[in-house]
């Protein structure tokens, strides 16, 4: 009886075994990344016309609420009606070719379809008004929008990410005056301030904030 497996065969078997293990690991990782949160920040989103938050909010200093008018009263922050856009652009850059789409939309020929930057699945019910009213500022989730020529998603918007804040909101709470401050950073004494604000805003218990029904229904 000779050796059934030559050394080359054994090597082949070993390599195959290693390859199988590697393949399985890669498949597992691929699956896991497929179900994992999206990478953040996301890429800048191309819009039908190159709207720049940097220009409008940063350089011109237009308040967030001028366009996102319902952010303090409603779940939906509000997208500016074309009328809002035209209130300036009927005077400024009234003939600029770049705004051709806007004018076309305003005159009703073709609707203007903005692409969503921050989107949530249909079974997640997010309410802007309660966050803004309870000390969560714009930049906490949307980043420094006033420095974005084209807007991109800053946060992963995964459940893990949402729930991290719902478990310990005090880390992100700011005074009402600074809600729309794009430069706000947690100050050094944020733990103490946050706890104070938590009480002042009468924010619900973590048990309620992390209950499934707070976001899903």
């Amino acid at each position, binding site marked *: 009886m000779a050796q059934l497996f030559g050394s080359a065969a054994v090597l082949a078997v070993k390599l195959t075994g290693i390859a199988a293990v590697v393949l399985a690991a890669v498949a597992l990782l691929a699956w896991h990344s497929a179900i994992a949160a999206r990478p953040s920040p996301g890429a800048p989103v191309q819009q039908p016309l190159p709207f720049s938050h940097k220009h409008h909010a940063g350089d011109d200093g237009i308040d967030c609420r001028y366009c996102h008018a319902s952010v303090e009263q409603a779940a*939906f922050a509000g997208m*500016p009606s074309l009328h809002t856009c035209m209130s300036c652009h009927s005077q400024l850059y009234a003939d600029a070719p770049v705004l051709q789409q806007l004018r076309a939309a305003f005159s009703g020929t073709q609707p203007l379809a903005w692409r*969503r930057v921050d989107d949530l699945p249909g079974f997640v019910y997010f309410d802007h008004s309660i966050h803004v009213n309870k000390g969560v500022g714009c930049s906490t989730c949307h980043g420094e929008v006033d420095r974005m020529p084209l807007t991109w998603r800053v946060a992963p918007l995964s459940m893990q990410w949402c729930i991290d804040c719902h478990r310990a909101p005090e880390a992100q709470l700011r005074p009402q005056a600074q809600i729309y401050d794009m430069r706000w950073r947690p100050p050094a004494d944020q733990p103490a301030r946050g706890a104070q604000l938590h009480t002042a805003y009468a924010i619900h218990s973590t048990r309620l904030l992390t209950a499934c029904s707070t976001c899903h229904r």
Partner: protein
Amino acid sequence: MLDLPPLIQRRDFLRLMSAALALASGGCVRRPAARIVPYAQTPSGLTPGEPQFYATALTQGGYAHGVLVRSDDGRPTKIEGNPAHPASLGATGPIEQGRILELWNPARSHAPLQQGLATTWQSFTSMLAARLAGLQSRGGAGLYLLTGATSSPTLRRQWQRIAQRYPAARWHVHEAVDRDAVRAGAMRAFGAALEPVYRFHRARIVAALDADFLAAMPGAVRHARDFARARSPEQAGARMNRLYAAECMPSVTGAAADHRLPLRTAEILELAQRLEARLAGNAADGGPPWFDALLADLAAHRGESLVVAGEAQPAEMHELACRINARLGNIGRTVDFIAPPPVAGESLAALVEAMRGGTVDTLLVLGANPAYDAPADLEFSAALGSVPLSVHCGLYVDETARLCHWHLPAAHELESWSDARAFDGTACIQQPLIAPLYGGYAVHEVLALLSGEHDATAHGLVQATWRETFGNDFETSWQQALQAGVIAGSASSAVKVALRAAAPAVARTVPRDAHDLELNFRPDPCIWDGRYADIPWLQELPRPLTQLTWDNAALLAPELAVEFDLHNEDVVELWVADRRIEAPVWIVNGHAPRAVTLYLGFGRRHAGDVGSGRGVDPYALRTSGAPWFTAGLGLRSTGTRVPLATVQHHHRMEEREPVRSGTLSRFLAQPDFAREAADRAPPPTLYPDFPYEGHAWGMTIDLAACIGCNACTIACQAENNIPTVGKDEVLRGREMHWIRVDRYEAAPQETGPHTDFQPVPCMQCEHAPCEVVCPVEASVHDAEGINVQVYNRCVGTRFCSNNCPYKVRRFNFLQYARDAPGLDAQRNPEVTVRNRGVMEKCNYCLQRIVRGRIAADRDNRRIADGEVVTACQAVCPTQAIVFGDLNDPASRVRANRELPRNYALLGELDTRPRTTYLAKITHPREPDDAA
């Protein structure tokens, strides 16, 4: 296979109007990129994503029911009652709830048709103009108008103008379920065609003589509220009312009765005659115990009693009811008489005669469907063929539309301006919620063509009507009327009535053979006379007494079934004279033994994909001489069977007492008679209780108030995007209603079986058995004690459903939620649409709680009691459902929960339900009740 409507093309306006999601290709692999389409100019008062409510009214048979319609980004999505409207007081019946789907029904007519081919409005108007020019010279002779019953002041005003232009024109009114006999009875009694308005809250003794005043009568929702008020064991106490009902087919009203007598419809008239005679002292003693008890009670409650007769009874009966009420001094106290809100018109029979006679040259049928629902003996369809020009205007290309030369799509009531009167004469303005989806025309605009006002809009016409009434301050009054949904002070004032001398006391000669079979027709509790046949919610809503869906049947008593050896679903042949139909049998305990009842509205041939071909057409047996009941019914088994879809197979309580009930005297002697050990002290447990420091939501359902009308079921369906599943799936036991109304029959008594209703939503158990068995945390508790179902986490093991002792969980066995355009535009955007494979159930209208919580949190306050109202609670005509915070000592729900008649369903299982019941209290006359 599902029998649901097929998909149709999405309407363009949807894309433009709402910030809707649209799928876009490319880019991200994970999720398709969504788009936001902003308004060009945001409509005033609208915040995108936030609902708005508009007051308007829905009409049926000419009677208005005031409603508030929820609009989400311009889409009408839900109908609520209007608290300011006298017919509603904030509630609605089941039909009003379903009518939002009528608006969105993709099967509605989309375009004018000429001989069945699509044409344009212009070609119709020019054709009509030419026609009218010819008629003008003859003074309009040959111009005939046929409408359904209407109370619109604008329409009445328009007709007056038309009559001026065309003095010889004729207006006929056809309503399959009419109230002609009521007015005729008042004419016999008082000399004027009047209508009664009942004040049930003042009546301590009510006798319903074939009168389903709680469900199938104008003002029924209001009746239910008033009736329940006078019946509350806490509020009325020993003065609680008592209801006697004599009827053939058990009705919601009969089920609520303390004493019920099943009789053939014809026999009820004799009963009333005897009653009148005895009260007048003109007859000798003697009668069944039911009769003697009623007599004694009526005699003892002069001015506090009420005799109500139903539409199906002849004019003689209504005359008798007037006379008895007058004799008892009830007029002006428990009943008033007013001028009938609907406009009087000539009859359909007269029209058909004219058609046959060749005098009809041009016929306009507006909103009526006589080709389906006219009495068979009129042979309307045949007569219609001899009319030179016939025009139909309606929501659907229905049976009549197909026989007419022209068809015009009508605007829905929620799409057009109009006005209407309620059962008590109160007027209101109907305002549109949305532009006509399918290019329909308001009835006023069609009539304006006749009156020569070619450019008039419905809005202008209605405003013109009210300009006279409102006078100088028109704008303010108009805005107030629109906001309130009623025109203040417009209720009809009571007419002073005086009895005329009694007509010759000749009993109607009904052949009275004790063995003769009687055939009865009654409007279907859901699809009425057939006009709502294409609304799947209504088709799938269980009929209160039979729990049948999607079909009608020959309803008959067990005694008759035994005699003919019939079982449920056996098909029988029914015939009256030479007219015959075949219908499956459904046995109803408590039905009069020698009679058969058919619900109208089925057997539609051209109702749309949902309603066509369902059930059997009873109109084939109905004649103008005997519209409601007829003697001489023949019945024969055919030996075939048709499956019928019921949602409840077992109607006995099996000594489990899910419904606990007692008489008033028992309640007064021992108020907590319904409580068992588990209700007095919770069973011992090893587990510490979970603390609920914030709100602790809970609900009580008062079984003494519940009349089993099913409005809660369909309101919940509308609010929570609950799909219909179709007949086949109901047959398999897969209906989806989150709150069902169980029906139980107690042991048969002398007056037939005693019926109990019990609405069963999720009990929101604190020790929820469903949650512990869920492997993936899809069924869990939230911080305020709601047992929530997280659809996006559910994998569909259905273990929760097995372990739910109340079986309130519903499973999407197949993909029931369809992407049918129109139907998905109706959906509540605040509620997830569930996919197949997912469990769902009641969550106390979580979306409403969250909305209330966020609103309160924004203002840094607690949610007030009554601020959050569940859909079932809002719609309930009798306010049987109360929802609120159990932790709030001042809340209504807490007060109810502390009532001695509060008990938990299956409390012995220690599930600790948050939803509890208040025991049913009845008030039968007892032997020692003094006269």
